[in-house]
């Protein structure tokens, strides 16, 4: 994490989300040229472990979204395979802790980690 320049960790009170859901498929791993993945204001299912195949991904931005399960990543270690990830933004309800092995991200320059201070969103 030599390139890390910015890290922000904050907690905020909850707010209401809309009811729209995203259920990812393993096929997302086929988008191997993807550099930017952004998801905003939505209920999301766990991101499949095939995300590790997105070797060119530079920005992963999951902003103000709620997860349908306890984990935002089906396999939290899969994020450590994103060797070109520079910007990581995780903002939401279901993120109790930073994904494990986040320290292995070689190209990371900024981490914005903001979660909402509530046990369970209803």
């Amino acid at each position, binding site marked *: 994490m030599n390139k890390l320049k910015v890290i922000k960790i904050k907690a*905020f009170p909850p707010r209401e989300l809309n*009811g729209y*859901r995203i*259920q990812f498929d393993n096929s997302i791993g086929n*988008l191997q040229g993807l550099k930017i993945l952004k998801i*905003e204001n939505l209920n999301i299912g766990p991101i499949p472990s095939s995300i590790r195949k997105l070797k060119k991904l530079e920005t992963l931005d999951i902003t103000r979204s709620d997860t349908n399960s306890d984990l935002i990543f089906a396999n939290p270690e899969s994020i450590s395979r994103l060797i070109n990830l520079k910007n990581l933004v995780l903002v939401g309800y279901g993120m109790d802790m930073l994904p494990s092995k986040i320290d292995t991200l070689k190209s990371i320059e900024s981490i914005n980690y903001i979660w909402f201070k509530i046990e369970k969103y209803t």
Partner: protein
Amino acid sequence: MYTIDKNLKEIKVLIDNQKSKNKRIIDEKLDFIQKEKEKIESKAYRSAMYTFAIESLENFIKKYPYSRRNLYIKKDIEKIKRNSKKVHLTIKEQVNKGNVDLLRRKIISSKGISDVHIFIKKFDTDENFKRILNTISKYTNIRSLNLNFYNGKWKGESIDLNKAHFQIISKMSNLRALTIKYGGYTGSSTYFGPFMG
């Protein structure tokens, strides 16, 4: 558009004549084109005009290799090349059984669409949404896909993004940026919305 055409043709004539005293006039015309360029709305025509503009500017550099203006012209060329690759498609009209095929035909006949913005709530059924997604994945070479749930008025069934949609999206092998969001809010790096307190 006519004025740009006219000016570009005049520049070409001036360049072909190789008269250095024409440089000032060429500069003025290039300035004019630079301003007019911003106003161009027709996308298909813009693409053709970009090619012509690039050729004209490159010719200028060849004819006047020591002109101080060349540095700026080279930058202009790069900018034009970048812009000319982007052809936007925004689906913000209501898409229903009646017009879905018309829209598909439009997409198929469009050349070089690279940036697509879809308001999902504008689709009356999930089936029609998938048909359009399929058409885009097969007939365009998109680099940026923006799926917006949009919070305005709409008539249709509730569409969530599911595995079937992602299987279609995953066929877009040239995709560089995928954005999925709800609402008209733009800009992901600002976290000071009203809910932040």
